């Protein structure tokens, strides 16, 4: 047995309050080197405060933040080898693209020639070759996003923080960008930490993620692990859709795709009527009004379609071991 590699970042019992509001409430979390980590949660859950504390813009009230095993409490933002990509991109409007990317390199007193070649390298990395002379207001939203990314990566931070990096992009571009970001992270071998409220985005990009609620971490794990074995009803409901079915004094969380729909009575199935039908192309989502429950069933559109319409009587069932038992 070898010791596991020490974490790159460790939050130890970190608390932060703003006036009366508790933003972060005793968070302990490890992020490994080379990992793509996602902090996921609704707005106001403390994920942004946690990121800003790592960047150095806020200081924890209690607890410690270690980077490579060293407490960074005393380090101001400009001395931390941590760079952040801002949600608004925060490109400097009076500097062109190349100078924006070179900004951090100049502050490191890198020689002029090395800066120039690093900027070219970055432009190529984010596929903006030849646009070094453009000013930020001459770029499209997607281009601005890539400049912001290049600028934060250029000085080779130990960890790159991404604050809702795709919030301003339209859906199609967002999906493309997610894949690009993953490829980029793998290629650079750099540690990325993304903050997002979009569970699909977190699931796609992250190696591991933490689901947060009201300043606390509800569950940490790989997306698949969290999806298949949510720790509690909140996580089950926040990550994708779920049916919470009472089983003794606990709940069984069953995903819509694990539910089976039948037009004939089945042994152990719940009877109900179709309340909603939504067609998504690859799948159809049915909402079934059953006795004291509203069940969601997702059915892949392969083979013969079910001839169902709203109001039809149906029977919904699932395998006895489907989903996970969770505490309420």
């Amino acid at each position, binding site marked *: 047995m070898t010791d596991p590699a020490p974490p790159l970042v460790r939050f130890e019992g970190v608390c932060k309050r703003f006036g009366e509001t508790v933003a972060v409430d005793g968070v302990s979390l490890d992020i490994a080197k080379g990992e793509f980590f996602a902090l996921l949660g609704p707005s106001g859950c403390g994920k942004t405060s946690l990121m800003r504390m790592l960047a150095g813009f806020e200081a924890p009230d209690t607890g410690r933040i270690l980077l490579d095993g060293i407490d960074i409490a005393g380090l101001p933002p400009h001395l931390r080898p941590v760079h952040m990509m*801002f949600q608004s991109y925060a490109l400097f409007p009076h500097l062109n693209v190349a100078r924006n990317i070179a900004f951090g390199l100049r502050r490191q007193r890198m020689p002029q020639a090395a800066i120039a070649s690093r900027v070219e390298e970055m432009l190529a990395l984010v596929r903006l070759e030849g646009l070094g002379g453009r000013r930020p207001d001459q770029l499209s939203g997607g281009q601005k996003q890539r400049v912001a990314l290049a600028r*934060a990566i250029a000085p080779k931070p130990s960890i790159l923080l991404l604050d809702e990096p795709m919030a301003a992009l339209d859906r199609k571009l967002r999906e493309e960008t997610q894949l690009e970001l993953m490829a980029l992270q793998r290629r650079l071998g750099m540690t990325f930490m993304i903050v997002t409220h979009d569970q699909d985005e977190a699931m796609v990009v992250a190696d591991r993620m933490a689901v947060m609620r009201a300043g606390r971490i509800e569950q940490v794990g790989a997306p698949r692990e969290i999806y298949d074995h949510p720790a509690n009803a909140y996580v089950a409901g926040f990550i994708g859709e779920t049916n919470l079915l009472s089983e003794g004094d606990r709940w069984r969380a069953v995903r819509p795709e694990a539910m089976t729909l039948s037009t004939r009575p089945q042994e152990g199935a719940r009877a109900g009527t179709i309340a909603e039908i939504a067609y998504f192309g690859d799948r159809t989502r049915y909402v079934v009004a059953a006795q004291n429950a509203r069940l969601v069933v997702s059915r892949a559109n392969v083979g013969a379609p079910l001839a169902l319409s709203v109001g039809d009587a149906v029977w919904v069932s699932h395998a006895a071991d489907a989903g996970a038992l969770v505490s309420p």
Partner: protein
Amino acid sequence: MFNRASVALGLAFLYGPIVLLVIYSFNASRLVTVWAGFSTRWYGALAQDQQMLDAIWVTLRVGLISASLATVLGTLAAVGLVRSGRFPGRTLFGGMIYAPLVLPEVILGLSLLLLYVALDLPRGFWTLTLSHATVTLCYATVVIQARLASFDISLEEAARDLGCTPLGAFLAVTLPGIAPAVAAAWMLAFTLSLDDLVIASFTSGPGATTLPMRLYSQVRLGVNPEINAVSTLLIALVAVGVTAAWLIQRPRRTGP
């Protein structure tokens, strides 16, 4: 039709006297109100009038120095008001910065005079310059504060994140961003200093007579066409200053 007429009437009311003054500055006659043909002789006479030239020189120096001082202090005050968030007395401080905008100038001038007397400072060029900086400071603060309030703070944070100290981030990113407002504030302060008479009457002393002071004292002895000429020059300078301030600060069209 009525709209145009009312605008014309308003403008005539505002600028009629000034136009008259400019026209009469090119009057060949020695008598101020009798037109005797076009001439630039009074501008020539002005160039020979050492007292008047001295006054112009004093006015320009006071304007340059006091405007620069007011702009630096105004920038600091604006940063304090916009960026420090809530601090005890913030509202009071904010209100106090604006108070000189509405205080009668006579009272400001008098209080400054009392201060210099109490401090036993001889009145002259420097007391005048400091007074103008004091009075124009609030105008500069208002102009810069408006711009700073709309300036995206994440730009400054990005600069700090990329290795700038807080001061470095302000100089590298914020200052270029608010530069138009800073320049406009300077032009405004300079222009206000140029045409001030009240404060100068209280706080200036021998050897530091400004152009408005010189004009006022000469007018009391009788109007001379040379005054029209120098007034025309002063109007031109103020017009240039105000236009420059407006041009600099006017919101620019952003690219595609």
